[in-house]
Structure formats: structure tokens, C-alpha cells
């Protein structure tokens, strides 16, 4: 699932901006939303990511377009998260508002609880959980994207699972 549809190693991507946006913008927006817990800021991050793409026109490798977009988005989210103003004023107690479609309201409460718990994880756990379980990337791909060792990714995933398990059992 982590791999993008047209996976061809080493070949430069031929996807246009419109295609990239149609394929991956919602994923970028939702990952940013999970991270920040604020819709407006998640939209700002998505905007920043695609503006950066348009202005720099990086030579993306075919099949790895989404990983580039998510990497830039997570970096931006991390910057925002670290900003003390945002932590104190907006994200001190992030209220993870849900946006279910009308026909999805009332769906299993434990699904909602899990989504909320993921959004409350500390930043370093949240990005590995989102990339692994939500976006389907493998440990080595996540290590490459985040610039950390594979062992660190595995350890963070394990600790994140422990925290989630503890939190969800406590509810």
C-alpha cells in the first residue's frame, strides 16, 4: 500500500501537478490532520507541500511521489508542532474533531477511539504509526523518509503500540 501505483524504480516521474494532486492531496491532508488535529493548519501544510513542489519541481522518482509529498508534509507538521506558540495556544489539548460522512455517523465507537488515540500520540510515535499503519510503508522506507535508523522505527512502532494499547484499555 505504501508503494504508489506506477512503481518503476529509478525512472523520473511523469505525473503532472493535476495528477499528483488528484492522487495524493487527500492523503497529505489527512496525515497532516492526524498530526496537527487542526483542519485549517492541515490545509495550510497541504498547500505548502504542493506550492513547494510547483516552485522547485524536484525530479521525483516514479512510484515514490507520495513518499516525497508525505516527507515534506511531516517535516512541516513537525516544525509547526515544535513551535511553542502552536503547542501552547492551539495544540495544548488538541480536540481531534472527526469528519465522517452523514451515513458513517454512529459507526463503531472503538474505531473513533482508535483514531483519536493515534492523534494524541507524541509526535515521534505519530509519524511512524501514520506512515506504517495508515499509509502502508515498510520499516526501511520509513527509516529512509525520516532519516532515522530502521531499529529506531521498529522501536518507536513497538512503543507506540504499547501506549495505544494502554490508553484504549483504560477507556
Amino acid at each position, binding site marked *: *500500500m505504501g508503494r504508489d501505483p506506477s512503481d518503476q524504480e529509478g525512472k523520473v516521474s511523469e505525473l503532472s501537478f493535476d495528477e499528483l*494532486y488528484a492522487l495524493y*492531496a*487527500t492523503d*497529505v*491532508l*489527512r496525515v497532516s*490532520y*492526524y498530526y496537527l488535529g487542526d*483542519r485549517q493548519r*492541515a*490545509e495550510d501544510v*497541504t*498547500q505548502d507541500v*504542493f*506550492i513547494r513542489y*510547483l*516552485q522547485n519541481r524536484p525530479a521525483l522518482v516514479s512510484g515514490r511521489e507520495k513518499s516525497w509529498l508525505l516527507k515534506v508534509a511531516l517535516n512541516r507538521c513537525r516544525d509547526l508542532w515544535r513551535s511553542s506558540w502552536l503547542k501552547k495556544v492551539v495544540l495544548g489539548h488538541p480536540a481531534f474533531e*472527526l*469528519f*465522517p*460522512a452523514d451515513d*458513517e455517523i454512529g*459507526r463503531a465507537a*472503538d*474505531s*473513533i477511539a*482508535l*483514531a483519536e488515540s*493515534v492523534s494524541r500520540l507524541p509526535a515521534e510515535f505519530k509519524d511512524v*504509526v501514520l506512515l506504517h*499503519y*495508515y499509509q*502502508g510503508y515498510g520499516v526501511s522506507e520509513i527509516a529512509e523518509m525520516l532519516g532515522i535508523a530502521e531499529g529506531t522505527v521498529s522501536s518507536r512502532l513497538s512503543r507506540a*503500540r*504499547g501506549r*495505544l*494499547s494502554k490508553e*484504549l484499555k483504560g477507556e
Partner: protein
Amino acid sequence: MDDRLRHLPEISDHVLSSLKADEALKHKILLSAASGREKRKISFRTVIALCCLSAVLVVLCVFAIGSKPEGDIQVISAGSRHSSPPIRLEEMIDEAAELAAP
């Protein structure tokens, strides 16, 4: 927990199903990118103009230093120090010519 987390994509699709990157956001991105490029062009031109101006100033300074005004020749002798008026090459030639004349 691992099993539950494996369902995160479906769970997210359910709980965030109305959170989508729409055409309005795309339009905003295109507008911002276009205005950003324009801003960058202006700033690049400004940098070039500043570089040219600096180069001109450097050349002017070099010329100003090269063409020093005539100054007094300091003659320092034992026990006293005085300034003599500038000695011109023409005057020296004239004096030499007078001395050489019979």
C-alpha cells in the same frame, strides 16, 4: 493492538471521509505558487541590480584611490622638520637645463 492498527486506513476513511483536498484548495495552491514565483522574480532582479551598483561603487573607489592629489613632500632633517612645496618635474628639468647651460 497490531491487528486493530492494521484497520487504520479503513477507520480513517470512515472517520475522516468528508476531509478531502478539494478544487478550492487546489485553486488556492495554484494562485499562491504563481504569486510566489512573481515575488521571486522581483527579488532576483533586485539582487542583480544591487550587485551592479556595488560593482560600480567599487570601481569608483579604486579610481579615487588611484588618482591621489598632490601633497607636500615631507623633508626631515636632523633636528628640524619642515614641509617644502611640491617639486614639479618640469621645474627640475628647467633647473637642470640652466645649470647645464654655459
